[in-house]
Every structure is written in C-alpha cells, then in structure tokens.
C-alpha cells in the first residue's frame, strides 16, 4: 500500500488548498438540499394526526441532534489519531470540530425545548435523553475550556485529545439512553435499512435534511480547518509566499 498520498494530504499547504477547494462543493449543494427539504417538510408533508404542525420542527431537531453526537465522535477520533501518530493536522481537525459540535448541541437542545412545550407541556424535563444531551454540551464546554487554558497550542492539542478520548465512553450512553431507560422522548424511529416507524412521506425530506446538515458541517469543518492552519502555520514559508 502506498501512503505517499496520505502524507501529502496531511501536509498543511496541501490540506489548506484541499479544504479551500472542497468547501464550495459542500456548501452550495447543502444549501440547495436544505431549501428543498424545508419546502417539502413545511408544505408537502401532511400534518401529523396527533401533533398537527408542531412535528415539523423534526427537520431541524433530528439532524442537529444526530450531528451533535457524530461530531463529538469525529473529534475524538481525530484527536486520537493526532495523539498516537503525532499528526498536527488531525489535531487541527479536532479543534475545528468543537465549535460546530457545540452549536449543533445547543440547536438540538433549543429545538427540543421548543418542541417539548406543546408536546409535553414543559420546556424541559429531566428525562435521560434530554439530560444526557445536556451533559454532551458540558463535555463540549469542558473540552473548549481545557483547550483555552493552555498558552501553547501543542500542549493544548494533546491535553484536549486525552480528554476527548476519555469522553468518548459517554457517547453510547447518550445514544442509547432512550433504549436503556423508559423515557418521555421518542425512541429510535428512523432506520436506514429496516422499516422506519414514521410516515414514509416524511422520511425522504428528513434524510435529505440529514445529508444537508452533514455536508453543511463539512463546509464548516473546511472553514475551521483553514482558520486553524492559518493560526498554526503563521510563520511558515509557504503561507508567507501565498500572502505575497
């Protein structure tokens, strides 16, 4: 197996150029898909027989909640790669993940709360899923606080990588909290391979929205990565050349 392409991609100048080039290919399709899925979700899908129109927030809530978990896992894996193979680029990816991840978590919490008011009659309940999602937010915050506490970027990278890896243990608990405890919150309703537990007319817009969120996150990641590389490589020759 030839690893040259990998090392080449992992070098900052290539990664920077790659991320810049990739970004529009993620951003614009994501925007288009979001517009279509919103249209379909708001106007095409019939109102739910139980929830009327309130359920439509699902199109933001579910993608945001899924991504909040996914992004943490990605961050931890990237950090682990950085720690074990001493790869600076992987650390940069981890650093670029944290802010979008925290934002998705906040979004999931906020949309959930907004949805909870009509559904359960309360903004907030100390339900396992909700509580563990809140804990996920604290995990992101702890990660950010630790990162911010080091002056030296190399130390910040490695210390926060250790934390991210330790925190990874909590992700399955958050994901499966609905299964393990009886909970107010909806159980697993979407399923890629089996039959989904919701109306098929909702599934397509929801899946499209999910994909759109994913690509949107990819675009955010490209932005964050470029910013990280600029910060880390501010003294490097190739950057100075590019600026001139």
């Amino acid at each position, binding site marked *: 197996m030839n690893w040259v392409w990998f090392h080449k991609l992992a070098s900052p100048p290539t990664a920077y150029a790659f991320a810049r080039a990739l970004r529009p290919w993620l951003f614009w399709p994501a925007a288009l898909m979001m517009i279509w899925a919103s249209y379909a979700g708001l106007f095409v899908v019939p109102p739910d027989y139980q929830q009327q129109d309130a359920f439509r927030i699902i199109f933001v809530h579910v993608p945001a909640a899924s991504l909040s978990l996914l992004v943490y896992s990605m961050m931890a894996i990237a950090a682990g790669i950085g720690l074990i193979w001493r790869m600076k680029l992987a650390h940069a990816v981890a650093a670029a993940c944290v802010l979008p991840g925290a934002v998705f978590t906040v979004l999931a919490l906020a949309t959930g709360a907004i949805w909870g008011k009509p559904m359960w009659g309360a903004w907030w309940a100390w339900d396992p899923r909700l509580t563990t999602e809140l804990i996920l937010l604290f995990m992101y915050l702890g990660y950010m606080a630790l990162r*911010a506490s080091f002056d030296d970027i190399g130390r910040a990278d490695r210390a926060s990588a250790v934390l991210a890896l330790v925190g990874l243990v909590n992700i399955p608990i958050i994901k499966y909290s609905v299964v393990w405890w009886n909970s107010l919150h909806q159980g697993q309703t979407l399923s890629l391979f089996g039959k989904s537990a919701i109306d098929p007319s909702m599934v397509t817009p929801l899946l499209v929205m999910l994909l759109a969120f994913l690509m949107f996150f990819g675009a955010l990641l490209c932005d964050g990565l470029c910013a990280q590389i600029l910060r880390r490589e501010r003294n490097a020759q190739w950057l100075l050349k590019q600026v001139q």
Partner: protein
Amino acid sequence: MSVNSQSLSPFSLAALILRRDLHLAARRWDQVLQPLVFFVVVITLFPLAISPELSELRRIAPGILWVAAMLASLLAADALFRPDVEDGVMEQWVLSGQPLAWLLLAKTAGHWLLTGLPLVLVTPLVATGLGVSSEHWLLMFSTLAVGTALLSVLGAIGAALTVGLRRGNMLMALMVLPLEMPVLIFGARAMDMGLHGEAVTGPLSLLAAMLLLSLVLGPFAMAAAIRISIE
C-alpha cells in the same frame, strides 16, 4: 530622596486592585466562568440522582439552589488569596504600607463581582429547570444576591486563614461551612416562604444585617489571618 508622601486615596487603591483582578480574569476568562458552570452542573446532578419529577424538584428547589451556591462560592474562595500568597505578592501587599484590610475588602468585592454575581444572574434559568415559575424571579435574585455576597466575605475569611497551609481547600470547607450554616438556613427559608406566597422581609433583612456586619468586621479578620498565614 524622600518617601513619596502624596498618599493614594482609598478609592484609587481599590480601583487598582479591581483593575488588576479584572486583568487577570480577562487573561483567564475560562476560570471566571467556572464557578458559574459548576453551579449549573451541580444543580443538574440532582434531578439525575434524585428524581426527574418537576413536582418533587420544585419542593426541594430552594435547598438545591442554596447548597449549590454555597459549594460554588466555597470552591471559588480557595483561589481568592492562594495564588497571591504563593507567589509572594501578598507579602508585598502586607509591606505596602497601605491598610491591608481595605485591600483585602476590595479584592473580595472583585471576587464577588466575578464569581457571585454571574451565579445570581443565571438563577432564573436553572430555577425554571427546577420548575419554579417566573413570578418568583425577583425573590430569587434578591435573596441570592445578598446571600452570595455574605458567602463571599465568609469564604474570604476562611481562605485567609487556610492560605498558609498546603491543600487548604478541604480544611477551609470545614471551617467555613459551619459559619455559613445560618446563611443557608435563612436563605433557604426566605426562598421557601416566598415560594409559598408568604412575606420574606423577616429572613431577608436578617441576611442583610448579617452582610453589613460581615462587611465591617470581616476585612479585619481577613487582614489578621493573612498576616499570620504568611509569617
């Protein structure tokens, strides 16, 4: 060569100290947020550990809020004088020829602004989480504002007494918690009465009186304790 006798006014001194602490806080803004986050996290623990039912949580909400506020203020108090003593800056304060009690009071005030006040401000949010309705926010604000200030002064005395000892924060907890007991009792009582629609002026004015007393006498206790600690 003579000593510069144009002496500094107490207010410019206090301003200097506040400015320094704000500088330090800005340098480590994450640490300023920490008591606040601790407060919120501790409060989150209770529904997990006890029961998620709002009706039950509402009943124990004042108790939880006050215990959490007390613990947060206690933890924050440990860092009040320790850094300054350990790196020798406090020695310089003692030798500065300025009234030490005043300097320490200014430092404690800054500490409350940075750690106590945010906690008071965030109370509506967590109180909502515990099922307290919004009509009671003013009550929560006022009792917690007076209470956290009182906790800051008491915590500062404890911090000053234990700062000479390594790993002093546990010892401080032991010394300070009994002192703070009355704050807890009257504070939780005021809140509880308020939540049940009764008048709260009684316990509240008691709290305020305790605050005044501690503001007048506390700084001298702190100054004496600091002098002993750095000997």
